[in-house]
């Protein structure tokens, strides 16, 4: 395996509600924390990638990257604002690695700060129109939970996956969240299958605790050329494989609801890394809803197709289980920080591999797999990260 780039510094805001900050101020909060936690100087940042500011509000600023670079006193040689929903930050890491690999720059700072409006708030209808086909889906009362539920119901039909198995995903992730000092749902204590099944119904088969928790936050990830990595951190997190695939925009156009672009991206990532599922020590799988980690565990080859429900049963993926998944609590218990959510699982994978995961540090964390997606399970990216070089 050949390292393509290295993550050497990560920082993440505590998820919460920050009504006092506007979109740019959220970015400044992320940057302020990053600069407090790491000894970084302007010369350490040659490239800068950000998401557009204000994605979850009605005023989107696609010039965020140049404003952030200016505030940081930078004149980057590689910079843009990119968006692929939850896939944004995996794509940033891929873009950063490609730029570094081509010698365009030696370092890229990847930034995100996000909001997630509550269901029923003023912009809910706008969101519905944005996430579904405005002419052929939106008129039918689409919004995010029932769209993802279409995949869950189909998976239950094809493979006999049960609501209890969906609930096991939530229970396992809550157990991890209890070990994370910043996890939004940790103060609520452990979950049980019964608690998930008796929570308020949202969109069958999802109850409240099958859903990720809308919140606000953001994170920063510094990516450098592999040969420079040890100057910054004694145990860097190397990117050794990746895959990217965009399969549809509207859910009714998806060719399958139970095998997603993730099967393709995982295959590409494993081939690039020269590794297979059996070489992975953990997985961080983007989890808008309880069905998602189940489908991704299958598509990433961590279990056979259709066995994803069983993969999560009996605490196998929880602390002390034989294959850790979403060791920070997932977006369902750590918090879903809206348009910045897709970097959370990258930050956690890096912390595990850099030996910085505190109480939840895995005893064996050498190589792990991360899967992110954006849109309505539309834009997929798989990353294989390792501290072996």
């Amino acid at each position, binding site marked *: 395996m050949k390292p393509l780039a290295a993550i050497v510094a990560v920082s993440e805001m505590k998820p919460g509600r920050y009504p006092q900050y506007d979109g740019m101020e959220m970015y400044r909060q992320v940057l302020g924390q990053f600069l407090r936690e790491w000894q970084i100087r302007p010369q350490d940042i040659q490239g800068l990638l950000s998401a557009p500011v204000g994605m979850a509000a009605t005023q989107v600023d696609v010039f965020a990257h140049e404003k952030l670079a200016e505030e940081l006193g930078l004149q980057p040689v590689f910079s843009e604002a990119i968006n692929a929903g939850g896939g944004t930050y995996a794509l940033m890491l891929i873009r950063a690695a490609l730029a570094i690999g081509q010698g365009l720059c030696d370092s890229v700072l990847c930034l995100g700060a996000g909001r997630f409006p509550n*269901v*029923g708030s003023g912009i*809910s*209808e706008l969101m*519905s*129109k944005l996430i*579904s*086909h*405005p*002419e*052929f*889906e*939106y*008129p*039918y*009362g*689409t*919004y995010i*939970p*029932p*769209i993802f*539920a*279409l*995949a*869950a*119901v*189909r998976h239950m*039909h094809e493979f006999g996956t049960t609501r209890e198995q969906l609930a096991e995903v939530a229970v396992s992730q809550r157990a991890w969240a209890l070990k994370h000092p910043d996890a939004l749902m940790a103060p609520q204590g452990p979950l049980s299958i019964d608690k998930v099944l008796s929570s*308020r*119904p*949202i*969109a*069958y*088969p*999802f109850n409240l605790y099958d859903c990720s928790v809308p919140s606000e936050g953001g994170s920063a990830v510094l990516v450098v050329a592999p040969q420079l990595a040890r100057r910054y951190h004694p145990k860097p997190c190397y990117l050794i494989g990746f895959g990217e695939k965009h399969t549809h925009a*509207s*859910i*009714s*156009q998806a060719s399958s*609801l139970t095998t997603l672009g993730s099967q393709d991206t995982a295959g590409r990532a494993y081939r690039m890394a020269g590794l297979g599922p059996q070489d992975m020590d953990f997985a961080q799988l983007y989890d808008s809803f309880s069905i998602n980690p189940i489908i991704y565990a299958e598509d990433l080859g961590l279990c056979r197709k259709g066995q994803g429900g069983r993969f999560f049963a009996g605490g196998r993926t929880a602390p002390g289980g034989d294959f850790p998944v979403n060791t920070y609590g997932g977006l369902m218990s750590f918090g879903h920080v809206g348009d910045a959510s897709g970097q959370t699982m990258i930050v956690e994978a890096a912390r595990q591999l850099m030996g910085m995961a505190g109480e939840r540090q895995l005893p064996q964390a050498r190589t792990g797999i991360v899967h992110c997606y954006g849109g309505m399970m539309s834009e997929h990216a798989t990353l294989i990260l390792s501290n072996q070089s």
Partner: protein
Amino acid sequence: MNGKPVPEISPDSRPYWEAAQRGELLIQRCRGTGKAFLYPRRWSPFDYSADPVWEKASGRGTVYSYSIVYQPPYAAFKDDCPYVLAIVELQEGPRMMANILHCTPESVHIGMAVKLCFETRAGGFRIPQFEPA
């Protein structure tokens, strides 16, 4: 009249919505491959051949997947809850989104046979929907 959305018609989909007002569901068929598709487009997504042929669909299909919505996305759908959001696979092949009307939501299941019906929205605008066959 309710506040539920009425689609903003695009030039490519005008025949589709005009047919809906007459009580018909139109699909398009690729001139090169002969394959049917939805939603309406200017070119075939299979081979980019121009002017796909409009064709009246049978209006018969099956439920490919569904969800029952208990928490409304916004006020206009509050009175409809619980409602069924479904993907219907037409007999001709293409899939489309619809609500399954005129039945108890809990009776809907994958593979259920459904037939075309219409719902009237603001301004008398009719949108294709489905009901048990």
